[in-house]
C-alpha cells in the first residue's frame, strides 16, 4: 500500500508543514515503507489488552492557588521574532487567501 500524493499533502496540511514537490514524493515512498514495516504489529491479538499511555503511575500534583512571581515580560518577549509593545506580533489572521493553495 503506497500513500497517495493527496494523503501526504493532507497530513502536511494538518500540521501546517510546507513541503516541496520533491519532499512530497520522497515522503510518499518513505512513509509507505515505514508503515509497511509496522504491519507486523497486526499479528498480535490485543483485543483484551488495555493501552498504556504512561508506565509509572502518576498522581495529580496539587498546589495552593496562590499568586507567585512570573517571568518578566521583557524576558518572555526577548526571543520573539516580531513584537509590538508588550505583545507578540503576528501576520494577518483572517486573510486566508494564500491558505487556499494548501487546501486539499
Amino acid at each position, binding site marked *: 500500500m503506497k500513500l497517495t500524493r493527496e494523503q501526504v499533502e493532507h497530513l502536511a496540511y494538518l500540521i501546517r508543514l510546507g513541503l516541496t514537490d520533491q519532499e512530497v514524493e520522497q515522503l510518499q515512498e518513505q512513509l509507505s515503507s515505514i508503515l509497511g514495516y509496522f504491519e*507486523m504489529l497486526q499479528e498480535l491479538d490485543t483485543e483484551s489488552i488495555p493501552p498504556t499511555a*504512561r508506565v509509572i503511575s502518576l498522581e495529580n500534583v496539587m498546589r495552593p492557588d496562590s499568586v507567585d512571581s512570573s517571568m518578566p515580560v521583557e524576558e518572555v518577549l526577548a526571543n*520573539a521574532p516580531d513584537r509590538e509593545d508588550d505583545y507578540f506580533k503576528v501576520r494577518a489572521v483572517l486573510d486566508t487567501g494564500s491558505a487556499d493553495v494548501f487546501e486539499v
Partner: protein
Amino acid sequence: MNLHDLTVSEAVRLLRERSLSSVELTGALLQRIESVDTQVKAFLTLMADEALLQAELADEALASGEGGLLTGIPVAIKDVISIKGTRTTCGSRILENYIPPFDATVVCRLREAGAIFVGKTNTDEFAMGSSTENSAYFTTHNPWDLGRVPGGSSGGSASAVAAGEALAALGSDTGGSVRQPAAFCGVVGLKPTYGRVSRYGLVAFASSLDQIGPFTRTVEDTALILQCISGQDPDDSTSIGVPVPDYVAEIRKDVKGLRVGIPKEYFVEGIEPGVEKTVREAIGQLQDLGMVLEEVSLPHTKYALPTYYLIAPAEASSNLARYDGVKYGLSAPDATTLWESYMRTRERGFGPEVKRRIMLGTYALSSGYYDAYYLKAQKVRTLMKQDFDAVFERCDVIAAPATPTVPFRIGERVADPIQMYLSDMFTIPANMAGLPALSVPCGFIDGLPIGLQVIGKAFDESTALRVAYAYEQSTDWHKRRPPLGEVAD
C-alpha cells in the same frame, strides 16, 4: 597524566586536596577542545569565558572549604537542555537563535553541586536520530574512528566525554539516545527510571519516554552525577518523590547471588557475531563475579521498534506544534498571512527526519488510523511492560547488548530510515517500560567499543549500577582512551 584524562571522582579529590585548581582543570579541557574538536565536532556552542569565570569562583569556594559534590568539575550539556542565556538549538535551524530565559532543573542542580559548563553538545535534530547525522549543523565524529558515527542522538555528549573534552556530560534518552552513543563511544551512559530526573527545561520530544541521563568514563562517576540530578521537582509533575539513595555508596555493595536475566530475544538475527561474542563473554564474567545467570524471555522484544516508531512520532507531532514562528525561533520573513507563516517557517526550519516523524505521528493519530496504529502501539506497550514485570519477579537485573553492531560509518545509513532505526532495537524496550538502563564498556572489536547493557527494576538504578561497577572494576576497558590527538599532544 593529562588532566583531560581524569575521571570526575579523581578530579574531585585533587580539587579538594588543593593539588589542582579548577582554573587549571577547566583551562586544560578548553585547550583539549581547541586541539581535538575540529576533528570530533562534539560542540555546537562553547562557553569558554563563562566556564573560566565559574572556575575562578569554584576555586574561591574550595579555598574556603565550601563547595558541593562537583565543585570545579567541567561538564558538557546536550543542546536540547536549557541553560539560561546560552543558545539552545536542539540541532535545528528553527531554534538557531533561541536563548532560553531559564535554566533546566538538571542545570540548576549541577550548578548547586558546583559544576562548570564548558558548552552545548551536538545532537540529531530534536533528538530524533541515532548518529548525529540529523543535526542541522554538522555530524559529530566517533573519537575511536573519525570515519564513523558517535551514535545518537546524544552523540556530541558521548564523544565529548570519550575525547576528554569534558569530564562528564548530560544527554537525553527517548529510545536509546544516551545508551547507544555511550556504547559506540566506549563510555558509561545511563537512562534513569522515567520520573527519576526532572525534565523541566528539556525540550520535549516524546513526553511519555524522554529522560535525562549522564555520560561519564566510569560507573562511579555516573552514580555521582545521578546523585546530583535526581529527585522530585515541583516544575515537573511527572517527576516522582521516591527517595534518592546514596548511589556512590550503593554501587560498592556485594554482587554475589544477584540474579541476572539474559533475554534470549536479544541474541537474534541482526546482531553482529563479534558483538554477540563480546557481550556473552562479559555476561560470563558476571557469573565469575558470583552473580547467578538465568536465561529469560521477553517475547515481545521484536515488536519494540515498530511500537516505538508509532508512539514517539505521535507524541512528537504534538510537541513540535509549538514551533510556529510566533513566540521564539525562526519565522519566515516573507509570509503575508499567519497561515503562510506557519507553513513556510516549518518548511524551512525542520530537517528531513523531523518532517518524516511528525508526518508519521500525525498519520498514526489521525481519524481512521488511530485504532490500527496509535492505540495498537499503546496496547503492545502494555505487553512489553508485562514481559519485564514477569522477568523482574525472578531477576534483579537484565544483562544484554546495548547495540546490535559496532559504530557504523558516517553516511552508511542516512538513505534508509529503517536501517537507521534498527540501531536502537536493544535500547528501546527499557524506554517503553520506563525502566532504568545503562551501557558500560565491555570490549572492543578492531578498536571499536562495545557496550554491555544492564536494565534494572523501576527506581532501582542502584542495583544496575552495582552490577556495572563490579563488572567494570574487574576489567580495564574503561581505562582505554581513543588514539585521538596523540600526535598533537
